[in-house]
């Protein structure tokens, strides 16, 4: 290939990527706007636009004089919007960390459960529910802080147990992670047994959900997720090389041990922040990277950001479904979003696999 040919391939590829990203970002924005219409309270689309327009400086006096119902305004701005944005943020975080875990482990089953991160968060949350003296710490919910610290603690624990000299072999990491994961979930089970009246709180947290999320919860985790994903993006190239094997990557100039360590820390930071407000929501971190890989391809430079956006869209749509699918049975009935992600996600995943037919690898 001549230099010109390389350059034109590169140009075509990057412009294709830009196109995909712009398309997905538009799809995400559309999903958020459509989702604002989904919910129990009947609020018309024009009223929603008015409510949103009112928040934008300079646009707020273009609304005309027709008044907005105050309860509708607070439903949109204080209940639906934070809930939708939390869904997008958590979906993006879980999917992004899924890409990182699967990339480092070169294992299609890897997700935040594998390193014990989810289990660590569960232990932290359950422990604080059972033994916390106050529900608020640093202006945040204790459960949230404890889950975040639990997730990071579990990750450091697994990483240090798996260390062999200065190296951390992936196989050891995986096995230690699974062992620690079981151990930590046993602790959660133990706490459930002695929980008594607090049992509901633990069970609901484990089921996951973000129906009643507050703006301040979102502001609290946003910096971690933003920093984690942006920083992790710089390792996309290393992940591509790691996919060819650690030795090959090492020869091609990747500091394999350092890259693995940093990627795992970032992935755990992202997951810990996400689950701290949502509880455990399964399947997103595992499935979305695979779906994206099927559609977009395995190059981490595009796989990572697109997975995050698709994850965001997916979880927001699942939460919309959680709000509406049960309403034919009872008009105000909602379902836990974690049930929807699996109930609708799994068949969709299988369908996509069947359609692709060709052999699939990471």
């Amino acid at each position, binding site marked *: 290939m001549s230099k010109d040919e390389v350059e034109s391939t590169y140009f075509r590829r990057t412009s294709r990527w830009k196109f995909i990203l712009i398309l997905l970002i538009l799809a995400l924005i559309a999903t958020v706007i459509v989702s604002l219409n989904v*919910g*129990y*309270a009947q609020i018309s689309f024009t009223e929603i636009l008015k409510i949103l327009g009112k928040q934008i400086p300079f646009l707020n006096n273009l609304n005309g004089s027709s008044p907005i119902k*105050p*309860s509708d305004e*607070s*439903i949109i*701005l*204080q*209940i*639906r919007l*934070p809930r939708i944005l939390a869904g997008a943020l958590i979906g993006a975080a879980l999917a992004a960390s899924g890409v990182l875990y699967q990339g480092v482990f070169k294992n299609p089953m890897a997700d935040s459960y594998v390193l014990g991160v989810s289990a660590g968060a569960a232990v932290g949350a359950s422990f604080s529910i059972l033994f916390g003296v*106050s*529900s608020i710490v640093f202006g945040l*919910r204790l*459960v*949230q802080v404890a889950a975040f610290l639990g997730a990071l603690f579990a990750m450091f624990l697994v990483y240090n147990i798996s260390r062999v000299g200065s190296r951390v072999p992936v196989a050891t990491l995986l096995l230690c992670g699974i062992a620690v994961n079981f151990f930590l979930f046993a602790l959660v089970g133990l706490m459930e047994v002695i929980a*008594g*009246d607090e049992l*509901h*709180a633990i069970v*609901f*947290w484990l*089921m*996951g*959900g*973000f*129906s*009643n*999320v*507050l*703006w301040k*919860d979102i502001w609290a985790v946003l910096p971690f997720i933003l920093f984690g994903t942006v920083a992790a993006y710089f390792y996309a190239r290393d992940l591509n090389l790691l996919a060819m094997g650690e030795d090959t990557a090492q020869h091609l100039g990747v500091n394999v041990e350092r890259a693995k360590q940093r990627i795992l820390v970032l992935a755990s930071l992202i997951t810990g922040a996400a689950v701290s*407000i*949502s*509880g455990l929501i399964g399947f997103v971190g595992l499935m979305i990277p695979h779906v994206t890989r099927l559609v977009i391809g395995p190059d981490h430079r595009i796989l990572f950001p697109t997975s995050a956006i698709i994850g965001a869209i997916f979880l927001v749509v699942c939460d919309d479904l959680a*709000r509406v699918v049960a309403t034919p*049975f*009872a*008009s*105000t*009935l*909602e*379902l*836990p979003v974690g049930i929807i992600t699996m109930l609708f996600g799994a068949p969709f995943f299988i369908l996509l696999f069947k359609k692709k037919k060709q052999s699939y690898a990471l």
Partner: protein
Amino acid sequence: MNRKYIIITAVVAAILIVSAAFAYIYYQGQAASSQDLQGLVDDHGYTTSLAAYPNTIISLAPSNTEILFALGLDNKVVAVTDYCNYPYNFTEWRAAGNMTSVGTFSAPNMEVIASLNPDLILATAGVQGETVDTMRSLGYNVLVLDPTNITGVFKDIELVGKATGKNAEATALVNSLSARIDAVVNKVADAPTKPKVYYEVWYDPTSLWSAGSKAWQNEVIEKAGGTNIFADQQLGYFQSSAEAVVDRNPDVIVLPAEGMGSGEPFWVSLEAVKARPAWDSISAVQNDRLYMVDSDTIARAGPRVADAIEQLAAFIHPELF
């Protein structure tokens, strides 16, 4: 010597005759009421027959325990669950060795039950379904009490009364409870409004749960002169949304307080409830009409139902009470 034998014989004979007479009278009494002990039909339609009035009873549910103690069967109850906390603090009783625990409500310990060899077990439905089958196949007499409304509670009180020889007490209890409930119902009938009531079952960042028309609290709210905002939902406890509560705009919010003051409730504080996103547009919040009620009193389908209704009525209609 002879005289001594005669006296002994006479005493023995007298004892025999007296005890025979007592036994006769006792068994006559038994026979007279033994019809009560035949064909005891429980809430699952299962028919049990007892040979005699039970001397040892195990309760597998807090509401069952409350019925037993309300009927004055204090000295017949040999074991209760860890969740039973009324009318006495059974934790202290257990510590003092006066009561045995069968463990948790959802998983009663079969070995403890078997070792006590009870004459009667009062179980409940749902999670105890399997336990009930096991106990019956081991030959124990089990009555399943699973009332879904106030009439059901009365029926169960009468059933327990029948099975334990406390018919009169059961009738008196039912009469007094229904008189108290009727008094409230008559009083609130004069009220000009039927305030909309939101009863909270659970709230945390993950979800909000309330009570539909099939939940026990629905009838309690109704009798107390209110309307459950979710009365149109044909469900028991169910996951709803904060949005639906805001939209349905309750006049009164009722929050269960576990043990009234021991530990922090799931809703944290009344201030926290008022500060929930968008809840400032709810009438109950604007008029500061948030009330706490002992969660056991309002949630247990048992003899404290009249207490619950009287309390709620005072919250819903402060102008009448």
